[in-house]
């Protein structure tokens, strides 16, 4: 077989493959539910109800989506420039550490939130700058270096929580002291468990969309991603563009950790992120790297997780069904998107 580009794909070719991918994902979910001895329709229903069925469920989904919007954006910005930042997990923790360092007494009231947000972004940005410098200067593959830094960062956080950042009143639990009230992101509506981090995430998506579509930097980022050699030949500052991309991407991922600590949890613990950095890859790819679509895919992915947790308690199907579903969605969707632009020819 071989692939032939379709120059003017019709509506059928653009709609059918993604619809089939979605169908395949649902079928896999049904199959897994049946394997676990549960009624597939009931399980699918329970996932949907668990994610959206009540005010509490919706708030939980929105809360879970907040860090995913940030990490999804971080991945999308980098991948658009073909910068393979798989280290959002580490950058997230860099932001979380800064939120604790500055939020537990180092800074006073009016300054603490904006300064710690900026400092968190800087920390995340610097954490990605290292691998990207190695890439542009020495040609060291950034996939492996950013991946390995995740493991180093998790160990570093573990050290901090057992050493310098240990909460003396934590009853032996490895967690940091609580942030001061003025260092916390307030709730959007008093009484509802949803903090301003969600709004900041929406703003970030909008800003990234503007940067990508309306600025020179956005154009350069896309050009470097589309064809690095051509961009260099056209006289674009390729190295500078990659470094700027790294700063933005790392900064966005750090905001995920910052908003989880300052908004949701109020302290740092080693289970702050159940893989938000890695899940950001799924969020970004399902959105085809489009910043505004990332808000929707983050809500979808968060819903799958929250709904699966609720379903798992009720139907006794392992909650890991969520991860399987999302990995299936990712793989079938990238194939489907290809098939909207190419046709398979037998030879």
């Amino acid at each position: 077989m071989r692939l032939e580009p379709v120059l003017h794909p019709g509506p059928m070719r653009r709609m059918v493959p993604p619809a089939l991918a979605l169908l395949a994902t649902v079928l896999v979910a049904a199959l897994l539910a049946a394997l676990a001895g549960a009624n597939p329709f009931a399980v699918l229903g329970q996932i949907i109800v668990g994610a959206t069925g009540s005010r509490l469920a919706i708030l939980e989904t929105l809360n879970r989506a907040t860090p995913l919007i940030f990490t999804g954006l971080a991945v999308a910005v980098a991948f658009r420039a073909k910068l393979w930042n798989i280290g959002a997990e580490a950058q997230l923790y860099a932001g979380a550490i800064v939120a604790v360092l500055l939020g537990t007494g180092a800074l006073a009231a009016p300054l603490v939130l904006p300064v710690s947000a900026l400092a968190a972004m800087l920390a995340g940005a610097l954490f990605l700058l290292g691998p990207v410098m190695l890439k542009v200067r020495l040609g060291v593959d950034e996939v492996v270096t950013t991946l390995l830094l995740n493991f180093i960062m998790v160990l570093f956080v573990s050290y901090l929580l057992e050493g310098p950042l240990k909460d003396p009143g934590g009853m032996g639990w490895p967690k940091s002291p609580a942030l001061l009230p003025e260092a916390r992101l307030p709730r959007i509506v008093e009484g509802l468990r949803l903090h301003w981090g969600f709004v900041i995430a929406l703003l970030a998506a909008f800003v990234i969309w503007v940067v990508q579509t309306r600025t020179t930097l956005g154009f350069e980022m896309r050009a470097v991603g589309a064809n690095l050699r051509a961009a260099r030949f056209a006289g674009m500052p390729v190295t500078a563009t990659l470094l700027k991309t790294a700063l933005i991407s790392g900064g966005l991922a750090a905001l995920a950790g910052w908003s989880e600590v300052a908004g949701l949890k109020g302290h740092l613990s080693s289970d702050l992120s159940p893989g938000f950095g890695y899940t950001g890859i799924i969020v970004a790819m399902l959105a085809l790297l489009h910043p505004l679509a990332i808000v929707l895919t983050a809500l979808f992915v968060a819903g799958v997780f929250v709904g699966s947790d609720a379903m798992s308690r009720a139907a006794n199907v392992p909650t890991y069904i969520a991860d399987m579903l999302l990995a299936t969605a990712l793989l079938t969707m990238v194939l489907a998107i290809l098939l909207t632009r190419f046709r398979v020819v037998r030879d």
Partner: protein
Amino acid sequence: MDLFEILLSASFWAAAVRIASPLIFATMGELICERAGVLNLGIEGIMVIGAFTGWIAVYAGLPLWWGVGTAFAAGAAFGLLHATLTVPFGLSQHVVGLGITLLATATASFAYRLALPEVTSPPKIDPFQPYEIPVLSQIPLLGEALFSQTPLTYAAFGVAGLTAYVLYRTPLGLALRAAGENPAAVAAQGLSVTGLRMGAVIIGSGLMAVGGAFLTLSAFSSFFFDMVNGRGWICIALVVFGAWRPGKALLGALLFAAFDALQIRLQQTSIGAVVPYQAFLMLPYLLSILALIVMSRRAAVPAALMVPYNKGER
């Protein structure tokens, strides 16, 4: 115990060879994929699925070698999925690889919970036992380090030798390497680039899974969720460190494992009393990054690595 005492003890070198074994399997697997032109980032998840399937097969009553075979088959199945998406369809090897890692890891977790819903600590199996090779195991130092290991460790060295032999001494190996360097030339010979690359990814993924199975069947005799713990990513670094050559990659894995064995022992010395244990655990990852930096100037990347081949396209 000081550094010299550690370096002169046979148990230290035996540990190094033991730690290297899963890395050797998985590094050879990745190396075969990459020499054929496909970066396989599914390695981390495929090692997890290998560790799980090998263990559950033996737990269900199959003999140990059948467990190894089960792991290979499971790895090959995920390899087939990876190969189908990246070779004929030419999808991004980064995205597909990470997707395979997520899918394989989630499959192992889901299946584990399904098989053992109520268990808090995973049951143990009877793992491979060390087999002392007659005469050779009596050599001082070397005997305990190299010839008193489990059969799966000997198999790891066998696989490394076989990989080198096939790649450099057979027509198949030549075709495979050419598929990673100049696929158009392979096609001009009338050979199928798609077939060669898919075969390499399937076999390579099987080997990665056996590397994972080493952890459950020879090292820890139980399955834990985080047991692979970045070993797959380290193997990708080892392939680069070994300049895509099996012999050098084998040496790299042994060197790396020696450092890993050393950091475990250093934790128990006077240094370990001062330095937090997390710093020692970071060393393998830091070392991998360092290895990538050192080798970056001399990298001999296969020319067509990550370049999809579409017939009739120039």
